[in-house]
């Protein structure tokens, strides 16, 4: 099976950098699976779990939005934050989820904070998803 290098980069560090067989990401228009030798491609990503297939195993990385760039040599995911399931603090994510839910219930849908709380809720749920599914 052919492979391609995948790099997941955040402003703080390089989270992941390995040869993989396939990457499945969620773009703004839906899920996309990228195989080696894909045409050069750029798309924004939503808050989601990236699935990485490698040697018959599947690994997941939670990202909070960002970009996917495919070029002939490698696939690069630029994310504001990215975590491997092992790095996710479940207690903290659960607390963040509850906090966001409480906040959402309290404020009206009109305020700017609503959007922010909604996003933080999404991020928390996303982290939990990645951490628990493993």
């Amino acid at each position, binding site marked *: 099976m052919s492979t391609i290098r995948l*790099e997941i*980069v*955040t*402003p*703080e*560090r*390089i989270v992941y950098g390995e040869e993989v067989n396939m990457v499945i990401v969620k*773009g*703004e*228009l839906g899920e*996309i699976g990228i195989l080696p030798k894909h*045409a*050069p*491609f*750029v*798309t*924004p990503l939503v808050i989601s779990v990236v699935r990485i297939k490698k040697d018959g195993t599947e690994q997941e990385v939670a990202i909070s939005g960002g*970009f996917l*760039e495919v*070029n*002939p040599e490698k696939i*690069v995911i*630029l994310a*504001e*934050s990215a975590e491997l399931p092992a790095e996710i603090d479940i207690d903290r994510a659960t607390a963040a989820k509850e906090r966001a839910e409480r906040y959402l219930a309290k404020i009206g849908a009109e305020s700017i904070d609503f959007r922010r709380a909604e996003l933080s809720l999404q991020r928390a749920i996303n982290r939990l998803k990645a951490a628990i599914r493993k």
Partner: protein
Amino acid sequence: MQGTREIKRRIKSVQNTKQITKAMKMVAAAKLRRAQERAEASRPYSDKMKEVITSIASRAEDVEHPLLEVRNVKKTGYLVIGSDRGLAGGYNANLLRKAVQTIKERHQSSDEYVVFSIGRKARDFFKKREYPLIGEIIGISDSPTFADIKEIAKTAVNMYAEGIFDELYLVYNEFISAIQQTPIEKKLLPLVATEEETQDVRTQIDFEPSAEEVLNVLLPRYAETLIYNALLEAKASEHSARMTAMGSATDNAEEMIGVLTLTYNRARQASITQEISEIVAGANAL
């Protein structure tokens, strides 16, 4: 002879100070190394972004985006990155002097600019002098994360996009080497289209949904990343400034201890001599 006890006390106190400054120096050195590593680690992210933006910009002839558009400047934003703590030599003083100088040169009245501050020292300075401070962050950790400054970076970028001000400058201490930092001001917005021609005839890139959409999401992020990079650099400068300041404080303390010890020994000797001569005088009198 009176005075010896006082001198001894001085020596003791200088020694204590020396210990503290020495410890601070070593801590700053360790933090500096970490800050440099962080700055290094953040580079791939912004480099990559720049690459993608350049490739979009080079393809699409007339990319239009509020963050790229050069407007008539009616109001200017300044984002000043200082530190929370002092004891870093001229770190904050130089920076703030630079900021004030720049502002004075460019503007007649305080309606023409607004200031964002990062760091307690910078905030206090601007508050006290009644500058139009519209955003502040204090208590940033020594190895800042992107999340720490996301808020203020977003605010600044959004305010620019909404036209509240028409350019945005970063003012911070540039890290040149471990012993040299200079305050600089850098224009962040409007983003300057990268002048270096990276026309390596790359294959056509597909954008989804479209090049404009991608740019819309990418450019604000890029601006935020640049702010983050500046912050990391400022932190590295802060630690190295503190290291140098504490290093010379330690040297000074050492020198002072030397001088004081000499004076102490002289005084001690003088008092012994005096005592002997008193005894001799007393013996002679018998």
